Every structure is written in C-alpha cells, then in structure tokens.
C-alpha cells in the first residue's frame, strides 16, 4: 500500500515537469545552521568528516537542493523532483520518528511567482487528496508581510530601522516594539551623548580613544566605527520620543490574525491603512493567488486560514507559505511548502540571487481511504 501511495504522489508532483534528482544526505553543518538558524541544532544529527569538517544529516531536502542548484544550474530555471530520507531528532517529551521519507518539488530560477506558488500548492494538495479528502485543513502565511508592512508604514526614525532589523522574528519584533513604546527607557551614557554631537569620523576617534584609555582590545569583527555608530543609534533611541503605542497595538493585532483568506486579507489591509501603508498590490497578488486556487479546487477556501503570526518556519521562508493537515492533526502537516527567494542569496553571501519555491510531502501521514 505504501509503495502505490508513493507512486501516486510522485506522479502528481511530476505532473508539472522537472527531473528526479539525487541529493546528498550529509551536508556541511555550518551551512545548514547558518541558513536555518541555531534553533534547528537540537534536531540535527552530526557527523565528522575525515578531515575534521562538521557535517550533519539533512533535516530537509531544501538546502541540499539549493546547493545542487548552485553547483549545477545557477541562473537557469529548474524544477527538481526529489525523494529521500531526512533526519530530525525528536524533541524532549515527544516520541517522533527521527528518520522519515519526504517527497518534494524545489523550483529555482526565473519564474512567474504567483503562477508557481499556485502550481506548487495545487500539486501538494493533489498529493494530500490521494488520502482522506474531507478532513483536510490548510494554513497560509506570508513571511514577507511584516517586513513589507514595516518598510512602508511611515514609522518615525529611529524606530523604523530598529523594527525592520527584527521583522522576520515575531518574538524579537514584539520585544523591540515593547522597548520602542516604553516611555521609561534607561538613560543614555555620557559617552553616547557626546558622540551624538560628532560626525562619524570624530565619533570613531572618540571611541578609539576611550577603548585605548581603558586598556581594552579593539577588533573582534567590530571596530571603533561600528561601535560609535551603534552607540549613536542607541543614544538616539534612548532620548527619542517613544513610538506611539498604536503601532504596537496594530502589529499585535496583525500577528493575531487567524481567519479565512478573504476576511484575513481585509483585516491586514485595514491594519496597514491605520499605519498609513497601502498594501493594495500585496492584497491584489494574494487575491490572484487565491482565485487561481479556488478555480482549480472549488470550495478549498472553506477549509483554509491565513495565520499571520505562524511560527515554526525555517528562517529562509520569505513569502507565501503553506501547510496542509488533517484538521484534527495540526501538529503533523502532510505537506509544507513556501517561497524562499532569499536562500540562494544567503548561501552565496549575496553574490547570486534566485527565486525559489518548494514543498515537501510526508507520505506516511497521508491516511489511505480504504
């Protein structure tokens, strides 16, 4: 039964073309952790290469596929179809399988973003529908929404950049907002206040002098210039007018959105309006995406929610993303996918860019109809 299910899944995923590829099981741990973040470390299995490089067993197919793309197909449009075992240690107090099969699509290179989002999502939905259909539930999110909103929301400086820097993490964003809106901040230092009156060169010299007088060591990735700039920025924040609490409330309201797509998008647009940000283009793109999905699978939106503050995604997901579950098993998605346009740039430290969208299916989680 498992074999025929996998064959069906492969057929559906291959429906939109692409080539089946083999991906390496062992990856450089430094690359995986640099991309996915240290929160993944406790789930990884590590190994050592004979020359001492720290390796890890792949925890998903995406990073392995991205490395293959960079090595073999950079700057072209490709669709990789991949299947294989991935390895994730079970969190404490949970009895999860530590190795399991994934089948997926990874699309890299120039692409019509919305069309590819829809194509990949529908392929994933098709695989999920090979099992019990009636109980499927879908969650959408958008990793690019909050950075986009903050970028255009006319938030006064110094808070705009401060919030943008942490926009990708709801937890860090909430913390930064609490600080920005707090009227009682720790007072600035004397040195910080004196630096504010100086231009960058003079402030750098002042910091250098301070460090030398204290017999401290300079260097270690941050020189006096970076330190002076940051001290000026934090002093500006210490004496700045606190951010209007309406921003914090609006972001809290935004992060709490968990609704059917149409009302969710309306709420998001409304919150953006309160912040003087026009998200019409963003909303139009979503409307187009949803329309194409609905057209292909009538009624699907009745089981679909947009959850703005959805957590648990790897950091490299930067746009539309989704999970497909059975409605009574939301902790264990059948399929998880999303757009990660920033991954190739991150892997190459900005030297290459590529659009990217992918999904992985957990075949064993698809419950047979028989």
């Amino acid at each position: 039964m498992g074999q025929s299910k996998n064959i069906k899944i492969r057929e559906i995923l291959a429906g939109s073309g692409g080539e089946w590829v083999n991906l390496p099981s062992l990856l450089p741990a430094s690359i995986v952790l640099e991309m996915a973040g240290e929160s993944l470390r406790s789930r990884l299995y590590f190994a050592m290469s004979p020359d001492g490089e720290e390796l890890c067993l792949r925890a998903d197919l995406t990073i392995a596929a991205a490395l293959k793309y960079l090595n073999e197909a950079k700057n072209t449009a490709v669709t990789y179809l991949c299947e294989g075992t991935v390895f994730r240690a079970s969190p404490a107090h949970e009895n999860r399988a530590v190795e399991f099969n994934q089948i997926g699509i990874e699309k890299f290179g120039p692409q019509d973003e919305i069309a590819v989002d829809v194509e990949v999502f529908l392929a994933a939905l098709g695989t999920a529908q090979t099992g019990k259909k009636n109980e499927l539930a879908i969650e959408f999110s958008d990793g690019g929404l909050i950075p986009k909103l903050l970028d255009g929301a006319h938030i006064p400086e110094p808070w705009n950049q401060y919030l943008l820097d942490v926009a990708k993490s709801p937890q860090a964003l909430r913390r930064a907002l609490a600080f920005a809106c707090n009227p009682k901040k720790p007072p600035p230092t004397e040195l910080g206040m004196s630096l504010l009156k100086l231009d960058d060169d003079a402030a750098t010299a002042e910091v250098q002098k301070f460090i030398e007088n204290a017999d401290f060591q300079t260097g270690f990735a941050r020189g006096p210039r970076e330190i002076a700039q940051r001290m000026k920025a934090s002093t500006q924040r210490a004496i700045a007018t606190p951010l209007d609490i309406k921003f914090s409330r609006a972001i809290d309201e935004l992060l709490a959105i968990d609704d059917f797509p149409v009302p969710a998008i309306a709420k998001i647009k409304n919150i953006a309006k309160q912040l003087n940000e026009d998200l019409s283009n963003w909303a139009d793109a979503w409307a187009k995406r949803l329309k194409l999905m609905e057209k292909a699978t009538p009624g699907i939106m009745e089981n679909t929610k947009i959850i703005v503050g959805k957590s648990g995604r790897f950091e490299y997901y930067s746009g539309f993303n989704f999970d497909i579950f059975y409605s009574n098993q939301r902790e264990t998605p059948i399929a998880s996918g999303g757009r990660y346009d920033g991954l190739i740039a991150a892997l190459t430290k900005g030297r290459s860019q590529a659009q990217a969208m992918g999904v992985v299916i957990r075949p064993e989680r698809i419950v047979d109809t028989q």
Partner: protein
Amino acid sequence: MPKTNKKLIFGIPSKGRLKEQCEEWLSARGLELHQVGGSRGYKAKFSNFPNIEIRLLSASEITKSLLLGEIHLGISGEDIIREQSDRTDDLIKFIAKLGFGNADVVVAVPNGWIDVANMADLSEVASELRKSRSHRLRVATKFTRLSAEFFQKHGVIDYRLVQSDGATEGAPANGVAEIIVDITTSGSTLFANNLKILDDGLILASQANLMLAKSANWTDTLEKDCAEFITQCSLNC
C-alpha cells in the same frame, strides 16, 4: 534496560581537585573512601557501607551514566549534566549542592565592545553583523545546548554556535568566533583574554551536586540502602 544490580552504584570523580573535594566532603560525614587496587584503581568502597559499589569515573562519564540509569548515585557538575540532556529534570533528582566545584557558565564578549552590556545589546549587534557581513555572530562554546536555550530565551536569533573543546577564551583573538560561552570561577582568565561577562549573561551558576538517577534499577533494598546513605550524609532525600 540496565541490568539489575545488587549493590548501589555510586559514581565519584576519578581524579583532580574535584575528586579531592569529594573525598573531603564524604570524610566530613564519616564516609572514608578506600580505593580498590591502590591509588590508580577505578573502584572504591566505604567500610561502613559495604553495599555501595563506588566507581571512579570522569565527571562527564558520571553524568552520562546517571542519565542512562547505569549508576544509582553520582557526584558531578550541574553544568555538565544539563548540557548533556534536555531531559535532565525528568531523569535526575538533584539531592544536594555540595558547595564546591563552583563554575559559572557565562556569555562573554570582547571588552572593546563598549556598547554591549547585556543580551539585548548582543541581540542587536548579532543582527547588525548579519546584515553587514552576511554571516551570523559566531559563539565559541562547548555548551551548545545551554547556549541555544539561553539565547532563545533572550530573543537572540542571528548567531551560530562554533564547537570549542578547549581554550575557548582564545577563540575571539584567534578569529574563530566573535564571542564565547564558557565556564569561569573568578573571571580572571576571561579578563586576561580581553573579554567581559555580560550583565545578564549568567547562564548557570553550577557546582558539584549529589545526584540520583531515577531510571536506574531500584529495588526495595537499594532504595533502603540509598536512604541510609543519604541520612549518613545528613541530607534529606
């Protein structure tokens, strides 16, 4: 499944200052350690507790054995066992802090980073470094589990741990990492290497602990022996 043992197995550090301090602590409670096979042997016994088998092990072997339930009791550092397992509180009962083997696990940054005093500052610097240099702040440590938990608690996200099994305090100067998480007693080694501890950078104030393995094979007799031993140590189990 650990095999049933008729004796209570007790792990004690096999060498160094920690072993001496354990012996002093036990001796002060009327428990003289007699090493079997001379001073180089790896077994010992108490004359007044013949049903206790003492195994002389490294501090990390003691904690591993406790977590696996291979020994019933052991003395080792809290930092070591908490680093080895995120299920420590499920598997281990901390019977007593022994007042020696003190070591603080701390976050330390270059002292020239005069703008960084606490974890919130560090979080900002990590994000700035990632933006300007396209890589995460590197943290050298052998305490990867404790560090990851602590950094998550403080909302630091743009960092990466670099495994370091020795001379961690030299990692920033050697260019291996920007900051470290390490143990310190007085802070003097950190200071000598131009590092400072963050104001809220104490991850764990560790010391030697007498610990009990909940998953060891406990018979009624062994439980009774253990209770007697702990009473002898003037402790409440």
